[in-house]
């Protein structure tokens, strides 16, 4: 029983990692007042870049670098469209999603000639799991042994980075001057502008953070959790991350909680499949698949109350003359 719980939690960490990165990317962007529907597209493009570069150079770290660069470029594209030219942020985001889906496919086709997939990455070219010291030796120690060797040890470095990034992001957003300004620019850009701080520059910088984090998420998907890029492999996780962001009301630790909850649901769903529950029988695959969405709607509608977005979100800033 304890074993099952531990394994489920272990899977939860693996499944929630890309959600955490992506949701925090969204948090930086949206806290600064820029809607980020393009989390999905940035992750997908990053996943492709990571797999492609890691395969060619046989270095996972170069893959990560490339993923971050590509993801930042897309974020900058988003910035140019909706910060500089004041375009509609949702439209720009959707456009980036479509661009990423099409571009990864076409480039993959012409570079690797494998129908839009990248070749399988050898172990040297991906982030493999790290075993903590003494993990094997401590495995049989009751409770703590299981916790240490099963739950904490044996993940790849990106998983640990995701969890270390959370307090760091919190510190940046809530304990630094930069963070205060970033949050202010999402609530009341005019006040920030009046104080003599550039709204435009702040929003661009927020998008750079979003780009870096989406790059990490994409790399995790294609070069750590999996070992190749397959088209559309982000499979809607960018949107789940967006839901987690709203669910967590744009606050770091609640957002982390929402990501872990969605991850847990997924991990439980995987284990529930095909097993018989007393009194209910075998639960159909379709129901299990729909669970995270049903739960989001029910929880959001019924229990957690209204999620209030940053006030200036979605509104391009126009400096009055």
């Amino acid at each position, binding site marked *: 029983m304890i074993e099952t719980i531990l394994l489920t939690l272990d*899977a939860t960490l693996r*499944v929630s990692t890309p959600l955490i990165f992506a949701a925090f990317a969204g948090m930086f962007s949206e806290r600064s007042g820029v809607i980020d529907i393009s989390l999905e597209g940035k992750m997908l493009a990053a996943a492709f870049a990571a797999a492609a570069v890691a395969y060619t150079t046989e270095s996972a770290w170069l893959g990560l670098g490339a993923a971050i660069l590509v993801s930042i470029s897309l974020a900058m594209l988003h910035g140019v469209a909706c910060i500089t030219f004041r375009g509609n942020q949702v439209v720009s985001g959707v456009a980036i999603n479509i661009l990423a889906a099409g571009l990864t496919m076409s480039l993959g086709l012409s570079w690797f*000639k494998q129908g839009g997939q990248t070749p*399988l990455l050898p172990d040297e070219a991906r982030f493999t799991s790290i075993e903590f010291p003494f993990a094997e030796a401590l495995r049989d120690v009751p409770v703590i042994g299981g916790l240490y060797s099963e739950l904490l040890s044996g993940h790849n470095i990106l998983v640990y980075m995701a969890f270390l990034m959370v307090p760091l992001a919190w510190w940046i957003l809530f304990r630094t001057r930069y963070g205060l300004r970033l949050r202010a620019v999402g609530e009341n850009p005019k006040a920030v502008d009046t104080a003599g701080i550039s709204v435009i520059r702040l929003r661009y910088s927020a998008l750079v953070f979003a780009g870096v984090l989406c790059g990490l998420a994409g790399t995790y998907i294609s070069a750590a959790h999996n070992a190749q890029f397959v088209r*559309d492999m982000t*499979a809607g996780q960018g949107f789940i991350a967006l839901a987690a962001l709203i669910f967590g009301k744009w606050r770091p630790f609640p957002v982390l909680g929402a990501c872990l909850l969605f991850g847990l649901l997924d*991990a439980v769903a*995987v284990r529930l499949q095909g097993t018989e529950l007393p009194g209910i029988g075998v639960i159909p*695959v379709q129901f299990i698949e729909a669970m995270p969405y049903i739960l989001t709607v029910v929880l959001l509608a019924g229990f957690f109350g209204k999620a209030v977005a940053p006030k200036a979100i979605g509104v391009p800033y126009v400096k009055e003359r």
Partner: protein
Amino acid sequence: MKNILFATVLGLTTAASVQAADFKPAVVYDKAGKFDKSFNEAAFEGVKKFQKDFGVEVKEVEPTNEAQVEQGLVKLARRGSNPIVAVGFSQANAVATAAEKFPETQFTLIDMVVDKPNVRSIVFKEHEGSFLVGALAAMKSGTGKVGFIGGMDIPLIRKFGCGFEQGAKYVNPKAEVFSNMIGSTGAAFNNPGKANELAKSQIDSGADVLFAAAGSSGSGVYQAAKDRHKYAIGVDSNQNYIHPGTMLTSMVKRIDVAAYNTWKAAKDGKWASGVEVLGLAENGVDWALDENNRDLVTPEMETKVNQIKADIIAGKITVHDYMSDNSCNY
């Protein structure tokens, strides 16, 4: 003089193009794409072989969404391609529509039956091939637990799982067989991440040989097996080469042969409509043994599997087909 020469050249090219126009084979892959290392790639193998053997170009269409499937079929038919091979169950409706619009064009549909006078339907006895790899899995397993991971939850995929389960239980009646499906839409064939998680969950529950029938998602299962030092079984194409050492075998579906034969029959004027069922006896399905998995399969295992294969062909073992009654009671 110049005019005559020109006319001759023109005449020659027309003659050549008429000849080519007589026979224009084509293929429409399904959404997973030509290089899924599995189902579609098997069809592509047939294309390559046919082009090499007869020097005739096979036109290929790779749709990326539902709507493009029918467009692709219609476009090929309009341009005179004949016969057109449609790969995959998901093309059934599109083939039915296109076959009505172009009654002169011959369509060959793989993996599904469409009853039209100009459609040839080729289906496979996947349950027989899966039975064999199930038997192998049970022989190889040290824990007595094996797992099946399917792509989209449809009867065709359950057919693989059901055959696998029967094979495993035939060898070891006490074997425990886990079975999971990745999802209920076509996207399930393109989701290696979910497949990877399902595989890890089965491995955590004790399974040490996993069989995936999941198109491109399969790579997630094979990767999980490799990372955890367990065994995986490939599907459709021979996938033993993907991770030599942990790929126990592959359940091969000879889609290449089916497609090849269809074009060859059409070329010889012998193409006929109707339903063709390919099983072990017709070499339509099989298990794969090559240098990549030679060391994993002991001579005893090989003898035993081939005995089972002979028994199935001889009718001594009957393998229940999930699709015959949509249940796996055997």
